[in-house]
Structure formats: structure tokens, C-alpha cells
């Protein structure tokens, strides 16, 4: 097992290398640069800026310099937020983004799994229809629509919760709910389908025929087995949630790093683009690894060597 984990961790390195080369290349091949303005900067100023930030070097040299910086823990300067380093920007926002992601993750697990279980146990009953309705709505409603809807209902009409910021727990509620809607729906659907499949398994029927209590059949025999496929999607969901949601951070003005995923591209803020991509890549790779390890733990049939 340990050998397996070490091998997988080592594999992350070439993955990150390929991701960084592709991103770096694409980013620099996009027309325009960080100094493009509607009020154009004089050519001498642009040249001076390029010299100041080393953007006049050939692209491969720039890449090597970036890698060199990365190995020393330096993500370089931001070209948009002058005087600030990418390290500063990431350090300022990552905690908030991760907190929001974990809150949303917990909420979606706490609601999504029971929702799926109840729906499966009351298959074709009212709870099933309601759960299906919730998950269909959750999957079909784009998060920016859901976010604005929550904002209008709970902040503008009811005035219960603040519309923006991250200062107090009251600020956390709406964004967490808005961000969790989609994963709640996703988890509920997976859980329901997987539970229904398990219901028909021989070992469940055996358990029934042995006269075990309904509760212990559901918990010990059904849920534990039904959750195996669900765990597979929890990893990517967690990675997706803790690397932030551009839309949710944008709508609720949350000072995380999620907003930079999209804005940095428009601004050609090269250092920030690279940092965001790498964080996302590392998060996905690590989450996938954790899921695989968890898998072996939950499913006795799986053994790594």
C-alpha cells in the first residue's frame, strides 16, 4: 500500500510538468498582454514594463525562470495587482476559498447522502419524487442563477442575511448553500441509484431472510456498499469545491482565490494564471489519490500492491 502511494505521488510530478507547460504555452500564445489598456500605454512604457518584469525574455527562458521561482516557493509578481506577489494573493485568499469549499462539501454530504438513501428506500414514493425534484433542480439550475435567486430572496426581500462579504458566519450561509446545491443533487442521485442497485443484491436478500432488523440491514449491508461508487465522485467534488467557485465568489464578493480563475485570464496576469492552474491540478491529483486509497479501505475486494 505504502509503495503504491509513493508511486502515485511521484506520478503527480510529470502530470504537473505537462499541465504547466501546456498552460504556459497557451497563455503566452493568446494575443494581447498584461499591459493592454483601452487607454493605450506608450510603446516605451510597455517596453519598460516588459523589461522590468522579464517579459522580454524568450518564452522558454521565462518558463524556466518561473519553474526556478516555483522550486523556491516564489510564484512571481502579479501583473495586475502591482507591488503584490502571487504568493501574497494566494495566501490572502486560499483560506477563505478552502473554508467555503469544505463547508459546502460537508453540507452536500450531510444532505445529499440521506436524500439519496431516503429516496431509494421509498422508491417511487413521495420522498423519492421530492428528492428527485430537488436533485433535478440542483443539477439544472446554473449556480449563478441559484446564487442571485438566494440573494434576492434572503437578502433583498427578507433582509435576513447580508448580500456580500465574508466577515461573519451570517455571510457564510448563502454562498455555502449556493455552492452546495449542485453537489447535493449529484451526490443524492448517485446514492439513490447505487442504493437501488444494492437493494437487489443477494446478500441484502439473505440479510432480510435471516430476519435482521431493517435498520441494521440498511446501515451495515446497504449503505456501506452503496457508498463505494459515491466515494469516487466525492474526490473530484471536493477538489472542485475547495479550489473555489468563480461564480459564487464573484456573486457574493468573497475574498477567496476562486475569482482569479477567470479574471486573471482576461487580464493576462500570467503569474496568477499559472498559480491557479497549478493549485487546481495539485488539488485534483491529490483528491484522486485519496479516493483511490479510500476505495481500498471501503471495498475489501480492492487491494493495491
Amino acid at each position, binding site marked *: 500500500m505504502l509503495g503504491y502511494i509513493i508511486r502515485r505521488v511521484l506520478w503527480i510530478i510529470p502530470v504537473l510538468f505537462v499541465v504547466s507547460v501546456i498552460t504556459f504555452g497557451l497563455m503566452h500564445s*493568446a*494575443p*494581447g*498582454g498584461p499591459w*493592454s*489598456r*483601452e*487607454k*493605450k*500605454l*506608450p*510603446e*516605451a*512604457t510597455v*517596453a*519598460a*514594463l516588459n*523589461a*522590468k518584469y522579464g517579459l522580454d525574455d524568450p518564452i522558454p527562458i521565462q518558463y524556466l525562470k518561473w519553474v526556478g521561482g516555483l522550486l523556491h516557493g516564489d510564484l512571481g509578481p502579479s501583473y*495586475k*495587482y*502591482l*507591488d*503584490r506577489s502571487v504568493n*501574497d*494573493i494566494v495566501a*490572502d*485568499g486560499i483560506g477563505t476559498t478552502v473554508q467555503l469549499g469544505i463547508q459546502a462539501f460537508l453540507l452536500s454530504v450531510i444532505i445529499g447522502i440521506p436524500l439519496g438513501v431516503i429516496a431509494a428506500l421509498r422508491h417511487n414514493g*413521495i420522498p423519492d*419524487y*421530492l428528492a428527485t*425534484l430537488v436533485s433535478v433542480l440542483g443539477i439544472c439550475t446554473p449556480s449563478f442563477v441559484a446564487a*442571485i435567486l438566494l*440573494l*434576492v*430572496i434572503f*437578502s*433583498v*426581500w*427578507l*433582509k*435576513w*442575511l*447580508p*448580500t*456580500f*462579504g*465574508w*466577515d*461573519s458566519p*451570517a455571510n457564510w450561509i448563502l454562498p455555502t448553500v449556493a455552492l452546495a446545491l449542485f453537489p447535493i443533487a449529484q451526490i443524492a442521485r448517485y446514492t439513490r441509484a447505487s442504493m437501488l442497485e444494492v437493494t437487489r443484491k443477494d446478500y441484502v436478500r439473505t440479510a432480510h431472510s435471516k430476519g435482521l432488523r431493517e435498520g441494521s440491514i440498511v446501515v451495515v449491508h446497504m449503505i456501506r456498499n452503496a457508498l463505494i461508487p459515491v466515494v469516487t465522485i466525492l474526490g473530484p467534488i471536493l477538489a472542485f469545491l475547495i479550489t473555489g467557485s468563480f461564480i459564487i465568489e*464573484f*456573486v*457574493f*464578493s468573497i*475574498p477567496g482565490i476562486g*475569482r482569479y480563475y477567470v*479574471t486573471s485570464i*482576461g487580464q*493576462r496576469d500570467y503569474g496568477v494564471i499559472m498559480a491557479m492552474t497549478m493549485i487546481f491540478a495539485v488539488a485534483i491529483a491529490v483528491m484522486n489519490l485519496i479516493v483511490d486509497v479510500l476505495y481500498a479501505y471501503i471495498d475489501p475486494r480492492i487491494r493495491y500492491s
Partner: protein
Amino acid sequence: MWLKKSFAILVVLGLILAACGGTQGSNSPSANASGSGAASGPQILHVDMGGEPPSLDPTQATDSASITVLRSITATLVYFDKQLNVVPWLAKSWDVAPDGQKITFHLQDNIKYSNGDPIVAGDFVFSWKRLVDPRNAAGYGYIMADVKGGSDLLAADPKKDAAKIDGLLTKFGVSAPDDKTFVVELAKPAAYFVYIASLYGTVPLQKKWVSQKGFTEAKNYVGSGPMKLTQWQHNAKIVIEPNPNWNPAISAAEGGAPKIQQVQYSMITDPAASLAAYEANELDIGAPPSQEVSRIQNDPKLSKQVIQGATLNITYFGFDLKNPTGLFTKSVTARKAFSEAINKKQMMAVAFSGIGVVADSLVPPGMPGHQDTAFIPYDLAKAKTDFEAGLKEANLTKADLKLQIGYNTGANWENKVAFMAEQWRTAFGVEVKPVGLEWGAYLDRLSKDPFDIFRLGWGADYPHPNNFLTDLISCKSTNNNMGYCNKQVDDLLAQAATKPKLEDQLPLYNQAQEMVMKDAPIIPIRFGQRFALVKPWVQNLVPTSQDSQITGENFFAWVSIAPH
């Protein structure tokens, strides 16, 4: 069936809950806790600056979010009054030498930074040199081009000419003969230059703290304005409070010492969310997106909170005059035809929600030198004959034309560009193909190979026609993407800059503008208009046409909040 019924019950339940909550919520303490703007008494102004400011270093800032804060926490030599006349600020007076090439500023008595140190003339010398130094690559460094030695410095390469730069800086035309006198020598007469001394890039900076601390944290920030920076939570909010060291005599006309105790700038990037925050009483000033304009106008409560007024900017479409075989390069008449075919009034109503003023020239209303003349009026019949004449002039046929109109995506230009293309199709039977590019790619394309017709905008740095004519359409202007060049226009503009008095300059600027409109290198479309919402309890707000981001931003220090 069951599903339908239970869903209906849920909806009804939800509505009942919502109704109950509405009546209680407005009085409950939680409403006050969340919407801190609802508290009565404290002098706190809540505004939205639209996002994290890229830099609060006055030398480096170039964008409106940064400017909106800098206007309160730093101070320039001269400032504007409510009518945008230049008035004394850190300088109590200034003399212009008879040849127009030297300006001597006399500083006010008892002026201090927020750290208590006195502001001395040498700090301006330091700050101005910092702005022009090519090693700092300041975005607005070019405003120093008129100072003696300025253009040499700006053109110097920070790598190749490294040895030269220090020498050039010592010869740069700024000096401080004593602590109270700041002298600027100009390379050529530039009567508008005193306006340059009102730009935030020219504020005094103390060498001692600039070289030690950065501008990125509130605790390190030393300002020179009526307010000071007390909190900067990156990407979340900025708080400013009165600067106890500000000399209230300077701002006697505005109301003396600052009245507001705190201005809280939030950073809401989504316009819809910003409007929601305004409606939830979390913001005192709102800037609704254009899609919301008609709802607001029809809302009995919100419609009373609307403030409208001119802003000093223009939206225009430029013609590519660099392509030697292009229709527009070869024929002025064709350019006029394309201008005459656009019904701007209808366009304003249809595509701009009625917010804005039809533009028929370059210099906007509210700026000296504005001419209320429709130089190329909407005239469909004339457009058609001019189009045919233009084709002949250019020696082209309709079939030769493969015209494109360029715009940047993601900023609601699609409907405006489609409107124009449709007008040309009906007038000339010509297809002009809209091409949208992402912002960075769009700007890149304009500087290299512009579209036949392309959208751009221009906003005033300072309220003087020089900023709208010389800086936009003179031959050498970097912002002249059209490639338009008329030596006579340039001569008129240079001549205007030698006249010390504004009333003597204006006829020359007017002549220049008339000449430009005769050449029709652009289609002016719309002068900006503010459509803002202001809560009734915000008092003494002074909106000016120079506000760049938030209505009234230039005079926030003297706003007061009525009990509510």
C-alpha cells in the same frame, strides 16, 4: 399528481414564510446586524468600488477603482471645484512665466502627511521624478512628457540606457528652491499643464517611507489627503477615515474638516449583486447595470433615488485609415456616408436603454470647448448618395467591399454593433460583418491591424479639451488607432497650448475639432451619462462629471449621513 400537489403545498408554505419574514425581518435586530447601513447616527458611508484596486501607489495606479480611493487619501497641488474649475489645493497659488514655459507653485502653510510629517516641495520633486523614471515604468508616466527632459526620459530604455537615466533625471525640469516652492520647467508652452498638476499621479510622496514600505498594506500607508487609509482587506474592503493632520483651511470651500467619519468601500464585482446590496441597504450609493434601468425607472421608491448627469467620456467607432486599399482610407465621403446612415437617437433608445447623450463631436458636454453642433447629422438620403460617390472616389465596387466591424465581447456591444450593421444594410445593401474578440485580443488586434470599423471609448483624465483632442486624434497619439493624421489639426492644437488663457484657447480647439469632423475619422456615438442610485440619507454628495468609479467620489470627505 401527488408530486404536483405536494409541490404546490411547498410553494404556498414558502410564500407564507416569506410574507411573515418580510414584516418581521425589517424590524428584527438581525436586519441591522447584516445591513450595517441601516443603523442610524454614525457617519459612515457605504459604497462599492467594483473590485480590488490594482495599486494604491499613486505613481503606478491607472484604473478607476484605484483612483476613486486615491482621490480621498492623497492630495494634489491643485484640485477642481464642483464646476471643474482649477482651484488651489496643496498649492495656495501658482505663477506662470510670461513665456508659458515655467510654473511656480507656492505651497500652503501647515500641510502634513497622515503620519504627521510636513509636506515639503522636495516631495513633489521626488514624486514627479519617480513618475517619469523609465525604470518604474509608470502607466501614466507620459503626463510628464511636457516637462523639460520628460520625453527623453520616457523614451529611454531602462536596460540599455541604464547609465544615462540618472543623468537625465538630474536635468529633469522640476526643482524645489525651498520647502514651500515647487518649480516646473516645461519643454514647450503647455497652457493646460496646470490641469496635469491635478492628476493623482503628481501627489507628493515622502522618499523615506516609499523606499522602505510598500503601498499594499493600510498600516504602512502614508497619505496626503483629507482622509487616510485605515483598513485594506484585500479583495474584500477598504476603509478610510479623516486624516487628523489635514489642514481644514485648504478645503474651506468644500466644508473645512472632513464631515464623514468613515467611508467603507466594498469590492463587489458583479453589478447585479451590487444592486442587490444597495436594495438591501448595505450600500448607500448604487450603480445599476443597464438591464435594470427600466425596472428602476418604474419602481415608485427606487425611481426617486436616481441621480443622472453627464460624465466626461465618449463611445465612438473608428475607421481604419492605415489600410492603403481600404474604402475608408481612400474616401472621406464614404466615411461620412457610414456616419450619416446611423440613427444615433434611435440607437440610444434601443441599445443603450436611453442612458447617454447622442454624440456628434468629440469634446463632451460639461467640458470647456464642447460644441453643440451635429457636424455629420443623420441623413439617410445623403448617406446613400455619399456612399455611391465614395465608391467612385475609391474606385471600388460594392462587390469589392468585405467590411468588418470589430468589438470586444462580454461587454454588451453585440446589440449595438448589430444595430449599426443593420442600418448600413438597409441604407447601402452592404453587409458589414461583426467580429467580436475577447478584450486583450481585441486591443492587440487594434494596435496591429484594426478592423475597418472598430469600437472604442475615451474618458477624460482632466477636464480640458487637450485631453480629448491632442491625446486622442493628433498624429502622434498612441491612442489614435485610426491612424488619422492631419498636420493642420496638430498645428492648431499646438497653437492652442501656447495661449495662457482658456478663453483664447477654446476658439482654436473648436477650429481643430471642426476640421476633424470634416475629415470624419470616427463616428462619435454617445457621451457618457451617469445613472446612479443614492439613498435619501446621503447628504452633501457632490457628483461631478469627473467621477470615475463612484458618484461623488471626489468629495466624499464632506458627505454627511442623516439619521434614518
